C-alpha cells in the first residue's frame, strides 16, 4: 500500500491572543533583530500514512486534523500532502480547516 508523507500546520486563529508569540517577538527585538512586526507560534505535525490512494489519505488526514491535531475553537490547520505515495516527493497545501 502506498505511504504518503504529510505535514499538518496548526496555528492559532487570528482572533486568539498568542502571549508566547508576543514574548518571543520582544526577545527578537532584544537580540537586535529589527522590524519583526508579527510573530505567532503554531505547531507542525509530520506524518506518514498508509492509504490505498491519495484521496483516502487526504480524507483521513483531514479528519485527524479537525478532530485531534487542532481544536477548531481556537486553531486553524493546513494540510500539506506529498502526492507520490513513496513517502517523499513534493508536497503542497491540499486542505485546511
Amino acid at each position, binding site marked *: 500500500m502506498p505511504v504518503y508523507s504529510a505535514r499538518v500546520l496548526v496555528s492559532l486563529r487570528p482572533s486568539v*491572543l498568542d*502571549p508566547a508569540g508576543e514574548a518571543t517577538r520582544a526577545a527578537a527585538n532584544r537580540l537586535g533583530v529589527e522590524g519583526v512586526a508579527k510573530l505567532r507560534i503554531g505547531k507542525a505535525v509530520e506524518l506518514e500514512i498508509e492509504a490505498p490512494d491519495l484521496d483516502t489519505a487526504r480524507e483521513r488526514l483531514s479528519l485527524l486534523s479537525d478532530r*485531534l491535531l487542532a*481544536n477548531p*475553537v*481556537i486553531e486553524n490547520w493546513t494540510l500539506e500532502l506529498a502526492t507520490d505515495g513513496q513517502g517523499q516527493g513534493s508536497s503542497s497545501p491540499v486542505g485546511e480547516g
Partner: protein
Amino acid sequence: MAIGVVVFPGSNCDRDVRWATEGCLGVPTRFLWHEERDLSGLDAVIIPGGFSYGDYLRCGAIARFAPILQEVAAFVERGGRVLGICNGFQVLTEMGLLPGALTRNEKLHFLCEDTPLQVSPGHCQWLQGYGDGETIRLPIAHGEGRYQVDPGKLQQLEDSGCVVLRYQANPNGSVGAVAGLTNPAGTVLGLMPHPERACDPATGGLDGRRLLASLLG
C-alpha cells in the same frame, strides 16, 4: 450518595479531591482509573486537576479519548452530575460538554494564588449552596486558564445563565472574566479554581466546601 474521581496518568489533584469529598464531607468516594468503564452506583463524577497524559498536544486533548470519559459522556446524557476542576475543565471543553477552550494565561505566568470570585448560581446544581452575587475566595493554580470563546457564543452563554463563576480581578485574561461554566441542564460544572483545596481548615479557607456539599442536597 457516592462520588467517583477520574484518575489519568498525570492527574495530581485526585487525592486532594478524595480528601475533600470523603475526608472532609464523609461522602463515599472511589477512584476511576482512565481505562475503566464502570460508573455503577455513582451519583456524581469529578474530573480532577493535573496534567492528563502529560497534556501533550493540548490540555485535555488526549484525555478526551479515554475509555472512562466515553462513559462519563453517557452519564451526562442520563442526567448525571459532573464536575471538572482545572485540567478537568480543560477536558470538558475538549470533549465538547462545555463550549470554548482554555488557553495560555495572558501574562504567561503560572498563577498559584487565592483569587476572589463572583458566584451566579442560576440553574447550576453544583452551586446551589451559594447566594446570587456572593463573593468567595478559592485558590487557582494553572498556566493555561485563559477562557476563550467567540463574542457571539460568549453573549449566548451570558444570556442563558451558563457563566456561573467570574474572576473579580481576572488574573489570566479570560474573555468575560469567565472562571466557571455550567451546561444548559445545570448538571455539568467546569471551573479553573480548586474548590477541593478550600474544604479543610488546615489548608485555609472553606469556601469550596459548599460546592462539594451541594450534592448532598
